């Protein structure tokens, strides 16, 4: 599969992320966009979708997928996203924040109204809603508490984050445990995507509060 497929799909993911950010009146930075898409990727299985085969890897500022930044840059160039701000971080790097441009809203509307993207839209909505409650500014800390990343981070940069592998410490494993627990609580009402996402974020929040330390930039 050529990289064009990855970047094109990431354009869709970025539009959903920017759409959720706009609803929360947030202009996400490039790192926050990476983190948002990562969270929708790892939780995608909850609504029956899978993260891309060539997805995030461990890197300097946590999970990173270069296709996402390439997608954001292309969308900004093509007039669908807008660079809302740019500044130098204390470490001297250039930080950028993004927002939807007007044509981008049209594009997002087309994606949202097509059945093929219903699951992605649903997942982005669930993650967006969780972040509205917990605060977008906590997104980096929440991702640093995500089980797959916690387990893979010590192996260094460039390691693939296999969030879908249910036989190792991963988001999939955690979701499976949640489903089992939900099944024991009520056999009539199996765990809904909303219930799992809510519990998953509650776990990330608790973990981040007790053990969380990113030591990374947020810009």
């Amino acid at each position: 599969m050529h990289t064009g497929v990855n970047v094109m799909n990431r354009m869709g993911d970025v539009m959903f992320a920017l759409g959720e950010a706009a609803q929360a009146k947030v202009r996400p930075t490039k790192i926050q966009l990476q983190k948002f898409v990562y969270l929708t990727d790892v939780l995608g299985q909850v609504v029956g979708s899978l993260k891309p085969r060539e997805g995030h890897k461990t890197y300097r500022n946590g999970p990173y997928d270069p296709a996402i930044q390439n997608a954001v840059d292309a969308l900004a160039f093509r007039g669908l996203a807008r660079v809302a701000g740019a500044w130098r971080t204390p470490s001297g790097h250039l930080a950028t924040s993004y927002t939807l441009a007007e044509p981008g809203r049209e594009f997002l509307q087309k994606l949202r109204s097509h059945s093929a993207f219903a699951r992605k839209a649903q997942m982005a909505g669930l993650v967006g809603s969780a972040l509205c409650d917990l605060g977008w500014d906590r997104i980096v800390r929440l991702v640093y508490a995500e089980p797959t990343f916690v387990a893979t981070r010590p192996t260094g940069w460039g390691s693939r984050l296999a969030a879908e592998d249910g036989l190792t410490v991963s988001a999939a494993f955690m979701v499976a445990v949640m489903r089992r627990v939900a099944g024991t609580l009520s056999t009539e009402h199996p765990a809904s995507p909303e219930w799992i996402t809510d519990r998953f974020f509650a776990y990330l929040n608790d973990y981040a509060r007790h053990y969380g330390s990113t030591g990374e930039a947020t810009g």
Partner: protein
Amino acid sequence: MEREFRENRARLKLLDSKKRHIHVALGKAENELATLLEYDQEETDEETEGVQEVGTQAQEERLPGLVAQLNEVGRKRADAERRGRGATADLSRVSAMLERLREEVETAEAGLVANFLAETEREQNLALAKLVQSTICPACGQKHADLADRARKFLRDHRCVLCGSEEPHEANPELDKQRGKLEECLREQQAFEEVVRLARAESEGLRDQELDLQTRVNEIRYSRSVVAMVERNLPEMTAENLKKLKQQLADEEADAEAQMGVIRAKLAGDYEDFRNKMDARMDRLRAAYAGYATAFLGLPCELDEVGQNGLLELKLFVPRFDNAVRPQAEACSEAQRFFLDIAFRMALIDVACGEQGTGTFICETPETALDFSYVSNVVAMFGSFAKKRHNILLSANIQNSGIAEKLIARIAKKDRTKHIVNLLELGRLSAVQQAARKEFKKIIRRMMTARVAKN
């Protein structure tokens, strides 16, 4: 892993000892009944024997129950392992199918995104659509017919209108169907994973239980002397009883032998695995050391091992270069000692960090031990370490064409300040250093502005 290995060794030792006792008793029972009567007579404590006997009898009564439990647990463990293997095979099959579907769905979705994107660009008259429709360059805003012709040709071939890279384009009418299949596969995969997880947890728990029961059975079986048991029964011994006893002893010996065989095979496997891993680690250490040491010396240098003639049979690592092993420090020059030691430390960091990990090496650079000709080699050595994404913190004196200057020259000019802590600015300078301040500044300026050297 080590604890398990030691426990297994202890079990093997116990079984071996008991088996030898049984074997001796068996031989004696067969050949010379009378010698059993004399055996161990003097060491028997009459007072405690009665108490022990009651305890032993009670334990013996529990033995059949324990053996039955052991068999049951073994059967359940084998069953759980069989289920786990079956589910793993199913999981592999489903995962392969899922991968294929995933690729198809990803490609189809990318095609849809590309179509919506192009549609939006046309409707909103965005820059790339203007290039195709109105021949306006998206970069300079001027009309450019050639550029537009090329863009139209790319568009017809389903390529990026600017660079001509292949783009996903076709909306797949089967996408909903494929998505449905993918979801079904995903559910199957999750179900098999659940079975594998449960089977693994169950078999691990049962294996622990089995080992515990086996230990208890062995403790009872071998809790008293084999010979004492024979002694006690002797007054009532008939030929039939003696045959039974002999058969019982033979069965126990065979059972101990079988258990020992299993433990021996596991220990041999574990040890082989350990040796292989150690060998692989040593090979990595040798290769890493050879790389660094050779970079420094400029001629092949490898690690060799020599005995140390001490109390322990530990070998020492020493360098070998110029066809000579250098077992003593005096066999190397001062500079070679310093820098081959650094090479060894960096090789250890490499091995400890594995394939992807990174480490940090803090080093007081003994550059005064070097003559000019070796400076570039040292820089190459440190450079190859840093290239593996390790961090390296070196202290260096300011010298004309010194290590610091050559190392800094390998960094992009704009990034150089980020890599340096200038202690001449932060520390308290001696009177001599104060006097040479101008010279220092001149050398530092040259270092910071020098052309980037090739790595």
